[in-house]
């Protein structure tokens, strides 16, 4: 007998599943069935294919561009260059310094020079090859340190920003001093869904764009300026977004597709290949970092001095904010009374760099955690104990002079992480696949050494430095034709995989006591949600949904109060009905909604922050999140191969709104941290990317991924909905440092560069073994 189907009508006593439960994602079923429409799935009758012509040189002068052969090819509808950009010729997140198409000078390998629309992607590819660009090749500026004083390669100069922090007594000296120089390679976000979208010209002379992005409104504003159109004629709708991790904060194909659509009068689809994707988005900044830590004999930090040079590549992107984060969090989650920080983000002819998960804190965490280990060794103190002695807590002061007023459970994270179970020792008969090198079957069991490392990290949540950070939500509550109360949530929040769609439904259900919560398409027909970055959407868009629901509830309470001849304050909304506080009188939601739908739009702004002053001091950040990581690795020192066995982590999350989703964020973030530690690097040689493919840019596979054991510290954050903190970035920040510390433990090598390459271990280890 088939199970009776559940009644679809609203039953007022059924409790809506609320926040704090592992509610399933609403897009899960279409995604497993292959029916979820990603941006590269967009299709419309009569569309043509766009493709980009890119510079093969990192630095060149363009003497001329001849598009005549491409234009003449059958099936080609348009070829456009900088001459066809009728609006602003440049765009950018922080400064509009990046050309839509290079016209006179090319500043990085892969910079767009022209774009083509054709009726078949193969035709478009051949037309791109037929565009003749006359380049005068120049010597690229590829050394970030040299760029600080080199002749400018852009009218705006080579220094994007110098962040100078002088905190406490810059001349303070500790009894014990350790110094080190560190280097971070260029990591790629490697989201799986390539840059793609569909631009459709509209009858009013505007354009509709269906696109995968992180921030619809900032995309729209940049596109509209370059198209010289009013903003309301550029309408963006979020298409299914196959991951982001920071790599979709900057524009990629958006302006090109819109220009081609307006020029041809046809819908234009653009989909980057994986190779093009490596050239089509910004990466994590490579960095060189010098540190000097001062401490007392009993292991209290006295001063941290550091000089950071972040290579921002050819255009600003978000370099100015990345270097600010790197500088503000340069000393890690420790109380440091005195600090001298000079952070530089500079322009070179290397690939442009910008946002990636962790946003500046990743690079400095790797270096400063290595320094803490070095200091522990010098002091003969256990490295975890040294961290505990200096751990930040609420009411402590940061390098910026800001006093933390929210939750800062650093010591709690450290202790909880340490208490997590260790993995089993490597067995004597471990299968070869379990040894470092895995499928290569190269390592010998007896050569393998195990190491354990520890690291702690933190960063800010949401936007900082005086930016008015907000999100907008519109909630409409109404009766369906069959009389069920249904809430529609309209936000422009980019769902990039993180699961905001689930959290939005959970909040609306909890606040309004309804089961049916529909998510309207994210688009620019509602106010900005801000970016899906900085671990901010659960707090910011979650806060907006909560506020808009509260406004809807107010109206319902007023309606019920009128009915019952009471004051709204006498009533509460509880499990689908508006009841007096003594529970004696009630009006059902259905009754209250018979007077018509209730709609409210609200913004959530976090508490204001201040810019940094000339000494890098100020209340620049709103909220912070912390995490501790312990890594266990197996290393074959002779071959330089590493297998990461286990990562244990305790993370400060405020409150888990959806435990299953938090679990996934922590595991996924750790995967990216492990990748940066041991395998992920874009190899840039004289400005040219040498490995733009998943064959040569290695991502952690199911065989590479360690076991993750995790626990959370839940101390509610003030001013955040339900006390929740963002959870996306902390897993990525210090997991890298923990892995490298574990490799150091196994090998006794310094290992001051990530990713740690086999050569860094094998060639360094060789002399020792020969003795």
């Amino acid at each position: 007998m088939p199970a009776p189907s559940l009644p679809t009508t609203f039953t007022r006593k059924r409790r809506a599943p609320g926040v704090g439960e592992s509610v399933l994602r609403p897009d899960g079923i279409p995604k497993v069935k292959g029916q979820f429409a990603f941006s590269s799935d967009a299709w419309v009758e009569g569309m043509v294919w766009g493709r980009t012509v890119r510079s093969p040189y990192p630095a060149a002068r363009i003497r001329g561009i001849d598009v005549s052969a491409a234009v003449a090819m059958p099936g080609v509808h348009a070829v456009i260059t900088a001459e066809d950009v009728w609006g602003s010729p440049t765009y950018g997140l922080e400064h509009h310094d990046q050309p839509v198409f290079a016209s006179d000078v090319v500043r990085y390998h892969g910079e767009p020079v022209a774009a083509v629309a054709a009726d078949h992607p193969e035709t478009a590819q051949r037309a791109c090859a037929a565009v003749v660009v006359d380049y005068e090749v120049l010597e690229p500026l590829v050394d970030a340190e040299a760029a600080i004083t080199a002749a400018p390669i852009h009218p705006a100069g080579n220094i994007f920003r110098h962040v100078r922090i002088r905190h406490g007594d810059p001349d303070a000296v500790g009894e014990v001093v350790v110094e080190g120089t560190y280097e971070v390679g260029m990591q790629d976000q490697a989201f799986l869904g390539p840059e793609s979208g569909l631009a459709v010209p509209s009858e009013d002379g505007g354009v509709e764009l269906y696109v995968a992005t992180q921030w619809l409104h900032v995309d729209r504003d940049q596109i509209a300026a370059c198209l010289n159109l009013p903003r309301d004629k550029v309408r963006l709708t979020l298409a299914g977004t196959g991951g982001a991790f920071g790599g979709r904060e900057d524009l990629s194909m958006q302006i090109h597709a819109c220009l081609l659509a307006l020029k041809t009068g046809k819908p234009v689809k653009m989909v980057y290949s994986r190779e093009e994707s490596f050239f089509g988005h910004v990466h994590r900044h490579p960095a060189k970092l010098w540190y000097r830590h001062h401490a007392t004999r009993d292991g209290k930090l006295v001063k941290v001095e550091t000089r950071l040079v972040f290579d921002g590549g050819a255009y600003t992107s978000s370099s100015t904010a990345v270097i600010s984060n790197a500088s503000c969090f340069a000393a890690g989650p420790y109380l440091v009374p005195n600090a001298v920080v000079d952070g530089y983000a500079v322009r070179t002819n290397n690939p442009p760099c910008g946002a990636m998960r962790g946003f500046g804190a990743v690079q400095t965490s790797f270096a400063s955690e290595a320094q803490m280990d070095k200091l522990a060794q010098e002091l003969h103190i256990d490295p975890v104990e040294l961290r505990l002695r200096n751990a930040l807590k609420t009411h402590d002061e940061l390098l910026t002079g800001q006093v933390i007023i929210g939750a800062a459970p650093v010591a709690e994270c450290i202790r909880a992480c340490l208490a997590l179970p260790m993995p089993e020792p490597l067995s004597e008969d471990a299968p070869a696949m379990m040894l470092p090198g895995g499928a290569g079957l190269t390592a010998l069991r007896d050569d393998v050494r195990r190491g354990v490392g520890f690291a702690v990290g933190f960063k800010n949540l949401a936007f900082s430095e005086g930016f008015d950070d907000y999100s907008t939500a519109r909630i409409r509550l109404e009766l369906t034709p069959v009389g069920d109360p249904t809430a529609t949530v309209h936000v422009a929040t980019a769902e990039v995989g993180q699961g905001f769609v689930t959290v939005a439904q959970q909040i609306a259900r909890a606040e309004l006591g309804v089961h049916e919560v529909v998510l309207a398409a994210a688009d620019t027909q509602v106010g900005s949600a801000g970016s899906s970055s900085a671990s901010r959407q659960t707090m910011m868009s979650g806060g907006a949904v909560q506020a808009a629901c509260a406004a809807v509830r107010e109206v319902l309470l007023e309606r019920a109060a009128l009915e019952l001849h009471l004051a709204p304050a006498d009533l509460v909304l509880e499990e689908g009905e508006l009841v007096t506080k003594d529970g004696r009188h009630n009006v059902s939601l259905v009754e209250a909604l018979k007077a018509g739908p209730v709609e409210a739009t609200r913004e959530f702004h976090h508490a204001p922050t201040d810019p940094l002053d000339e000494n890098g001091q100020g209340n620049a950040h709103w909220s912070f999140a912390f995490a501790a990581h312990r890594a266990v690795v197996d290393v074959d020192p002779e071959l330089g191969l590493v297998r990461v066995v286990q990562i244990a982590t305790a993370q400060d999350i405020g409150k888990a709104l959806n435990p299953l989703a938090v679990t996934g964020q922590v595991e996924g973030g750790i995967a990216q941290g492990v990748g940066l530690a041991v395998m992920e690097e874009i190899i840039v040689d004289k400005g040219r990317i040498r490995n733009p493919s998943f064959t040569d840019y290695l991502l952690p596979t199911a065989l590479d991924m360690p076991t993750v054991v995790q626990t959370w510290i839940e101390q509610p954050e003030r001013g955040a909905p339900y006390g929740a903190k963002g959870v996306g970035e902390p897993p990525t920040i210090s997991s890298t440092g923990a892995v490298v510390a574990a490799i150091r433990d196994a090998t006794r090598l310094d290992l001051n560069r990530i990713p740690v390459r086999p050569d860094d271990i094998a060639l360094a280890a060789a002399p020792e073994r020969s003795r």
Partner: protein
Amino acid sequence: MTEQTPSDALHDPTTPDGSGREDYPAPGAGPDVLAALESYTLAVNGRDRDVTEAWLGESLLWVLRERLGLPGAKNACEQGECGSCSVLLDGRLVASCCVLAADAVGSQITTVEGLSGEGELSDVQRAFVEEGAVQCGFCTPGLVVAIHDVLHRNPRATELELREAISGDLCRCTGYGRIFAAVRRVQQERAHART
């Protein structure tokens, strides 16, 4: 990693004319690429599907997605490295980006859309949803197909065998933890059903 094989104009500017374009016919040298077109029939998810006037260079992935309205197989790398385009070709797991569509004539093709009926979920699909194995979802269809395949061939696969079996399927969001949880659940459910 010192030298790369040039693969397109962007990749290597060291070709004789400095343009890196030798992979492609010279401009204007040949006829329109769409001038020589073929029509053929593919057997997809148990149905014959006509492909009309198609360029023979099109991959199976592209034809499924763009000509047959089956976008479930995904285009994450289009060079056989990521597994997101996985389909079954006569029951064998293949990367559809690396198969020419016209070469698949006469084979039975099963895509993610063909694994379960309308409104239904396979056990693997259900476990993915309920165990939190889905985040952005771009790798999901390929992984679902690959896990159907490995559990069909090796129902009692050990964790190491499973890890190896899906090591050709890249996931950038999940760190694979919830994916393993989903696979373990399907194995338990199927083992329970066998007893």
